[in-house]
C-alpha cells in the first residue's frame, strides 16, 4: 500500500512537472483566434518544407548515431577492458565534450575551422573549404559526434563490467580475444549499446544550439523560429509534434529489440574480476591511434578554446562578470540532480519492478520529455505557473528545478532502472519474509546495494542540469541566470577571450564533481 502510494506520488510529480506544461501547450496549439482548430497541425502535413526538415533531422540524428557507435563501442572496449596506455586519462578527455553545452563545442570547432580559425593561419584555401563544410550536414555531424560519442563509450564501459568473466574464459579455451569479443562479449552488452544508440539518436534529433549556430534546418530550429520570428506558440508546439512521433517509434523499436521492455544489467559475481585484454604488440599502435583520435575529436577544439582564453585578465574578468552565475549554476545543478536522483530512483524502481500498470507509458513519457525542445517546455511552464497564487514557484529558482525534472527525469530513471536490474529480487523477497515493510526494504537493502548507480544517476542529472540552456533561458527568474545562459547572452559583442574563458570555466565546473568523486573512491579504496 505504502509502496503503491509512493510510486503514484512520483508519477504525479512527473505529470505535474512535465506532462502538465506540455498538455497546456498542446491545448493552446488547438486554439486559433479563440476557436478550436487543427490549422497548426494541418500546415505540418501540407507544407513540403516539413518533409525536408524531417529528412534533415533524420539524416543528422542517424549519421551521428552511426558514427558515435562506430567510434564509441571500440573506444569503450579499448578503454574499459584492455591494457591500453593512458586509458584513464583518455577516458576522462573523451568525456569532456559531453559535459558542456553542445553550442560551446560548435564554437570551439568554429575557432579551428572557421574563416578566422586556426586552420586559416596555416592555409586560407583549406580554411575556406573547411568553413563551408562545417556549415553543412557533415559539419553538424562532426560536432554532434564529438559531443555524443562519450555516451556510447561510457555505457559500453559500464556494460562490459556486467559480463560474467567465466563465459569469456570458457570462450577463450576455443578462440582468441577477437572472436570472444565478437561472439560472446558484444552480444551480452548489446542492450547497453542499444540504450546508447537510442539516447544519442534522441539527443541529436532534439539538438537546437548546434544546427542553429551552423545553419542547418531541422525540426528544433523550425520550432524555435516559430517562437522567435512569429511569436506563434501554437505553431511552435505543432512544429514539435514530429518529435512525439519519432520518440514513440524509437521507443517501440528499442522495446522490440530488447524484448524485455527495459534494460537489465547483471554485474559479474563478486570476486570474479573481468580479465584484462592484453594488447601485446598492438598496444602501442592502438594507444597512438586513440591519442590521435582524442586530439582530432576533443583536444583540437578544446586547445583552440583554451588558447583563445589565454589573455591577460580574461579569467579575472570572467569571474567578475559571471561569478554569481557560476555559483548559481552549481547550486541549481546540485539541487536538480538531487531531486532527479530521488525521482529517477522511484520511477526506475517502478519501471524495473513493473509495479504500476502504466509503467511503459511513464517510461515513454520521460523519454519523450527528454527529446522535446526546451522552449516548448519553458513556455508551457510559464503558462501553467505564472499566476499570482503560484508566484512563489514562478518567481524563484523552483521553476528552473521543475523544468529540470520535466526534461531530465528520463536520464536518471533509465540509469536507475538499469542498475536495479542488477539486484536479484530474492534479496527484497527475503526481507519481506522476515517482516520488513517496503520503505525499510528500499532504504536498507535496495538503495544501499544500488548506491553506485544512484551516484551515477546523480552525476548524470548534475551534468545535464549544469549544461542546460533551453529551459533555463526561458524561465530563469530576473537576476538569477545560469552560466550557460550568461555565456550565450555575452556572446553578442563580448570579447572572444572572455567568452573562451567562460567556456573553460564551464568545462571545469562540470569536471570538478567527477574529480571529487574519483578522489573519494580512490581514498575509500586506499582506506580499505
Amino acid at each position, binding site marked *: 500500500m505504502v509502496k503503491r502510494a509512493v510510486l503514484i506520488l512520483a508519477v504525479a510529480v512527473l505529470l505535474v512537472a512535465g506532462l502538465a506544461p506540455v498538455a497546456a501547450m498542446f491545448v493552446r496549439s488547438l486554439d486559433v483566434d479563440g476557436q478550436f482548430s487543427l490549422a497548426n497541425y494541418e500546415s505540418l502535413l501540407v507544407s513540403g518544407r516539413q518533409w525536408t526538415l524531417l529528412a534533415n533531422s533524420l539524416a543528422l540524428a542517424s549519421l551521428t548515431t552511426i558514427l558515435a557507435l562506430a567510434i564509441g563501442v571500440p573506444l569503450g572496449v579499448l578503454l574499459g577492458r584492455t591494457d591500453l596506455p593512458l586509458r584513464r586519462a583518455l577516458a576522462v578527455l573523451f568525456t569532456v565534450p559531453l559535459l558542456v553545452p553542445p553550442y560551446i563545442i560548435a564554437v570551439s570547432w568554429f575557432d579551428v575551422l572557421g574563416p578566422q580559425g586556426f586552420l586559416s593561419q596555416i592555409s586560407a584555401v583549406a580554411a575556406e573549404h573547411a568553413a563551408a563544410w562545417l556549415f553543412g550536414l557533415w559539419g553538424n555531424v562532426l560536432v554532434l559526434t564529438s559531443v555524443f560519442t562519450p555516451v556510447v563509450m561510457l555505457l559500453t564501459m559500464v556494460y562490459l563490467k556486467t559480463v560474467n568473466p567465466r563465459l569469456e574464459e570458457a570462450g577463450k579455451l576455443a578462440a582468441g580475444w577477437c572472436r570472444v569479443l565478437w561472439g560472446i562479449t558484444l552480444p551480452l552488452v548489446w542492450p547497453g549499446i542499444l540504450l546508447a544508440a537510442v539516447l544519442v539518436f534522441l539527443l541529436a534529433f532534439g539538438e537546437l544550439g548546434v544546427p542553429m549556430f551552423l545553419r542547418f534546418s531541422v525540426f528544433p530550429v523550425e520550432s524555435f523560429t516559430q517562437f522567435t520570428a512569429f511569436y506563434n506558440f501554437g505553431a511552435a508546439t505543432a512544429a514539435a509534434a514530429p518529435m512525439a512521433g519519432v520518440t514513440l517509434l524509437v521507443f517501440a523499436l528499442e522495446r522490440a529489440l530488447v524484448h524485455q521492455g527495459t534494460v537489465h544489467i547483471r554485474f559479474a559475481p563478486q570476486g570474479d574480476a573481468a580479465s584484462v585484454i592484453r594488447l601485446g604488440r598492438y598496444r602501442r599502435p592502438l594507444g597512438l591511434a586513440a591519442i590521435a583520435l582524442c586530439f582530432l575529436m576533443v583536444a583540437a577544439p578544446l586547445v583552440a578554446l583554451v588558447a583563445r582564453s589565454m589573455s591577460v585578465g580574461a579569467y579575472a574578468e570572467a569571474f567578475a562578470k559571471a561569478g554569481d552565475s557560476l555559483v548559481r549554476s552549481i547550486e541549481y545543478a546540485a539541487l536538480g540532480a538531487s531531486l532527479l536522483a530521488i525521482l529517477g530512483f522511484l520511477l526506475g524502481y517502478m519501471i524495473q519492478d513493473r509495479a504500476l500498470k502504466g509503467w511503459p507509458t511513464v517510461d515513454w513519457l520521460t523519454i519523450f520529455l527528454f527529446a522535446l525542445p526546451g522552449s516548448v517546455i519553458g513556455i508551457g511552464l510559464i503558462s501553467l505557473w505564472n499566476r499570482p497564487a503560484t508566484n512563489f514557484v514562478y518567481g524563484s529558482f523552483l521553476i528552473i528545478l521543475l523544468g529540470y525534472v520535466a526534461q531530465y527525469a528520463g536520464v536518471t530513471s533509465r540509469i536507475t532502472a538499469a542498475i536495479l536490474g542488477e539486484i536479484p529480487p530474492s534479496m527484497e523477497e527475503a526481507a519481506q519474509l522476515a517482516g520488513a515493510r517496503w520503505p525499510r526494504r528500499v532504504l536498507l537493502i535496495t538503495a544501499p546495494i544500488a548506491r553506485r548507480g544512484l551516484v551515477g544517476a546523480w552525476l548524470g542529472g548534475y551534468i545535464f542540469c549544469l549544461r542546460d540552456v533551453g529551459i533555463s*533561458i526561458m524561465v530563469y527568474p530576473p537576476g538569477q541566470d545560469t552560466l550557460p545562459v550568461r555565456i550565450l547572452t555575452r556572446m553578442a559583442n563580448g570579447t572572444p577571450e572572455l567568452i573562451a574563458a567562460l567556456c573553460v570555466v564551464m568545462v571545469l565546473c562540470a569536471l570538478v564533481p567527477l574529480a571529487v568523486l574519483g578522489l573519494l573512491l580512490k581514498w575509500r579504496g586506499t582506506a580499505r
Partner: protein
Amino acid sequence: MKRLLAIMVGTLAGLVFAGCSSQPSAEEVVVYVSEDQVFSEPILKDFEAATGIHVKAVYDTEEAKSTGAMNRLIAEKDNPQADVYWANEPIRAEVLKQKGIAAPCASPNAAGIPDQFKDPQGCWTGFSARARVLVVGKNVKAPPSSILDYTDPRWKGRGVIANPLFGTTTSQVAALFTLWGDEKAKDFMVRMKANGTELSTSNGESADLVAAGNFDFSLVDSDDVVNRMKQGRPVAMIYPDQRGDEVGCMIVPNAVVLIKGAPHPASAKRLIDFLLSKETERKLAFAECAQIPLHAGVETPPEVKPIEGLKTMRINYAEVARKMQDIQPFLKEWAGL
C-alpha cells in the same frame, strides 16, 4: 547508508537555504533587456549606483534571436513579472503595444527626442539609435552607396544580407514595403535574390564575411561595422541612400517600454527617465556599440555621425510592425525556410 542520507539531506537543505537567502531589496525594478548585455549591463549598474534601486534583469541578445525576453513578456501577459522592457528596436516595442502589454508612460526626458522616434500614445520611446548601413571591404573600388545596389548586375554575387526573418533586417525589409508598396518591394527582393545575394545568419556574420573578403558589401547595423573597424578589420561604413531622391538611411533606436501592470511602477518610471536621459545617450555613443544619440547636442565620438547630419528614412514604426507580420509568409518563402 543513514550517514549518506544525512549528508544528502543536509546538502539539500543548505543549498535550498543558499538559494532562498538573497535578501529582497526595499526598492527594486525588474527589467527585460534585448540590447546586448555587454552594452546594457553597465548602464543598469550606473542606475543602481545613482538611485540605490536594485535592478533584476533578464538579458537576451540579438544573437539568440531574442527568444527569451519577448516570448516571456507575451507568455507572462496575464501576470506580468517585468516592469520595464528595454528593446533593441522599436518594432518589438510596437508588437508589445499591439498585444496590449505596453502601458503609456510620459517621461520628462522624452521631450528632446524627435516625435518620429516615439509612440504617439507614449507606449514606447526611442533613444540611442543604430543606423542601418552598408559595410564594404576597404579594397572595393567605387563601393555601393544604395541598398538598390543589391539588384545592380555590377554587384552580382558580391552582396550578402542577414536572414530577413530575424532582427533588424526584417524591420528594414518591412520598412521598404511600407515606403514602396508591396509590388515594388517584392520585385526588389526577387531581383536581389536573382542577383546572387547570399544569406547569412546574422548581421555580425555578414560583417565578418565582408571583412574576410568573401563578399564586397552587406546591409548591417552600424554597431557591427564600428566594432569591426575598432578591431582593425579592413572595412568601411557607408550611410546608404543619402542623395536627394533616395530613401535615406533607416534609423533603429532602442526603445523603452513600461509594462502594463508592472509590479514596481515607481521604480520603473525612474529607470525609464534614466534610460532616456542625455547622459545615458552619451555613454552609449562612447561605448563599443557607438550608438547615435537622438537628443540634439549630445557629445559623440568622431565615428558617430550626429542624427542631424543624416538623411533618415521617414517611416512609421507602428506601420512597419504591422507590415512585418503580414510579410512573414513571403519572407519565409523568399529565404527558403
